[in-house]
């Protein structure tokens, strides 16, 4: 598994797309820093962009990488290696290299800017952490999609729809639901509904750092208890980790049953 992991990482960090992706974030962060001297403003803009873009890139890149390395995977499958370790290796390698490019792209300019020594350091860690977690979650979803669809066009279609669903449609339906049932107490439902969308979870964790003053303004006791203490943050982190573990487990199940 480790060997496959290593080769995947080696393969990917020389990949043109990934270098482009890293370069994009590098340029973006540098541009934002030049545009604004205020680190917290840079972080807000970055979090807006990463929350939208990292899932998209994660899912599309994941699907693309799987389809591109289908021959390599088939070749590996013919070797005496367990399916679990082949796919864990490949998936792990891909997730790692995506995360690496994010860390380099977002991290280096801000580190040079001196983010270590400003009070926004925790926000920086959270923005970066969320970007990494979302990349991992959506690339595992990508593998599942690719495993279920051998037709590439269909696979890409499903991937784009999945991203669109989590990034836009889900929140739209959510808001619609809130508006329809606005005469009822909605705190618990609202909290519950956010759990089913990793982008929402990541967004709320960022909100708890950036907009805590606004969130604390809502009088509902459930909200205040949830957002007002570190426990809420822990719960969100645990849920995000579930969002990594469960799709990964699903992927391995599918891998072990699929007729390649």
């Amino acid at each position: 598994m480790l060997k496959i992991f290593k080769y995947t990482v080696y393969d990917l960090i020389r990949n043109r797309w990934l270098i482009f992706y890293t370069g994009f974030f590098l340029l973006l962060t540098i541009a934002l820093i030049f545009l604004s001297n205020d680190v917290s403003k840079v972080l807000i803009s970055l979090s807006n962009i990463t929350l939208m873009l990292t899932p998209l890139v994660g899912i599309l890149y994941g699907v693309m990488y799987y389809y591109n390395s289908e021959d390599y995977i088939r070749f590996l499958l013919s070797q005496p290696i367990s399916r679990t370790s082949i796919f864990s290796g490949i998936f792990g390698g891909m997730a790692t290299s995506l995360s690496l490019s994010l860390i380099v792209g977002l991290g280096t300019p801000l580190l040079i800017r001196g983010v270590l020594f400003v009070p926004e350091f925790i926000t920086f860690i959270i923005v970066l952490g969320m970007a990494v977690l979302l990349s991992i979650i959506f690339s595992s979803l990508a593998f599942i999609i690719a495993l279920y669809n051998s037709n590439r066009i269909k696979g890409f279609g499903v991937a784009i729809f999945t991203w669109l669903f989590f990034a836009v449609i889900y929140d739209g339906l959510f808001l619609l639901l809130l508006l329809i049932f606005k005469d009822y107490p909605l705190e618990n439902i609202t909290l519950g509904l956010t759990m089913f969308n990793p982008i929402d979870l990541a967004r709320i964790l960022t909100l708890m750092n950036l907009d805590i003053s606004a969130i604390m303004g809502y009088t509902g006791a459930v909200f205040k208890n949830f957002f007002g203490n570190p426990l809420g943050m822990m719960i969100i982190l645990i849920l995000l980790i579930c969002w990594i573990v469960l799709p990964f487990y699903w992927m391995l199940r599918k891998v072990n049953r699929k007729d390649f």
Partner: protein
Amino acid sequence: MINNSNPYFKPIQWILIYWFGVGPIHLHARVTLLNAEQDLHQIVESAQPYDSLILSQGIYTFENILIDKPLTLMGQEGALLKSLNGDEILLVTADSVTIQGLTFTGVKTSYIKERSAIRIDKGKYFEIKDNVITNCFFGIYLEHVSHGVIYNNRISGQATTEAGSGNAIHAWYCSNIQIKGNELKGHRDGIYFEFVDKSLIEENLSFNNIRYGLHFMFSNDDIYRKNTFRDNGSGVAVMFSKEIKMIENTFSHNWGGASYGLLLKEINDASIINNQFNQNTIGIFVEGSNRITYSNNSFRRNGWAIKFSGGCSANEITNNNFLNNSLDLVVGTKLSDNEIHHNYWSEYTGYDLDKNNIGDVPHYPVKLFSYILNQVPEAIVLMRSFFVYIVNFSEKVSPVFTPKEVFDPTPLMHEVQ
């Protein structure tokens, strides 16, 4: 004990009297050094006007000490006045009384009487300086007084409920008083003004009070400047008052469902200049206030920078910085006849082709999302969602729900310094 040949009398104390301002006119005044065994009631009663009583170190357990003549009460280090049964400690009914360097404690909560450590009733020209008041129901209570100063006191309480706690400094029907350099915490209101005119509140620090850091009711022509209000239930409430000047104050970390940095209710002709609003749930909440100037303020990372809730006209919002607030401006109803111009909005996305530091496209600070939030407060969890961006953007292109007339025609490209 009190006579002209006072054994404690020394030349150095003449200098002391000079320093603290009682001196030149009243050179005949006597200075008496007291210790904790003596009966304060009797000594105060037999003192002559303009005498000075210096309390040496020790715990003086008395209550309801009536000062009905001009006296100077000074404490040496460690002089502690403790309420005997939890009733009031000092009651001043004369002019020109100075109370300095004393520590007060032990005035208990009463639901019948507003007990306080120092009460001044109908006195003028008083000075209350360098005192420490801890765990008292009310700290300093002024009624019908004028021309007094309250300097450098530290007043702290352990308030838990609004009903069962008093104000650190409470002023009722006063004029021309100065409150400067005090530290006020753990009370109901840090400073409470009711019918107080022409007064100055300066350089105070008011924090951890459960209701307001500073509270005006029916008070006119007052100025407060360079104060800091943080972590209070709400920072400052100005209600039913006219001509209040609010300058160079800092309002920060006032969090909660009904928490405002500054609450304006039925205020006319006020000016709010050069203040800092940092991380409050609502920076300024305005209701029924007219002819108010908001200029050169900075709003940083508040939930709502300014929330207008109707009945506001002829206000001018100019040269302010709106920096990274969750929502910059919210208007409840129509905001007519108000001028918003030359502000810096960190959310502004326009451009400046002629490089005159004024954006070429107007900025519309009210978003559809804030309209939705008014209807469904729970929707706050969707803030910064991509969907909300799309909704806001489409509303910005063709406003339907948000008021068209609220906009900044001349947004600045750079922060106001």
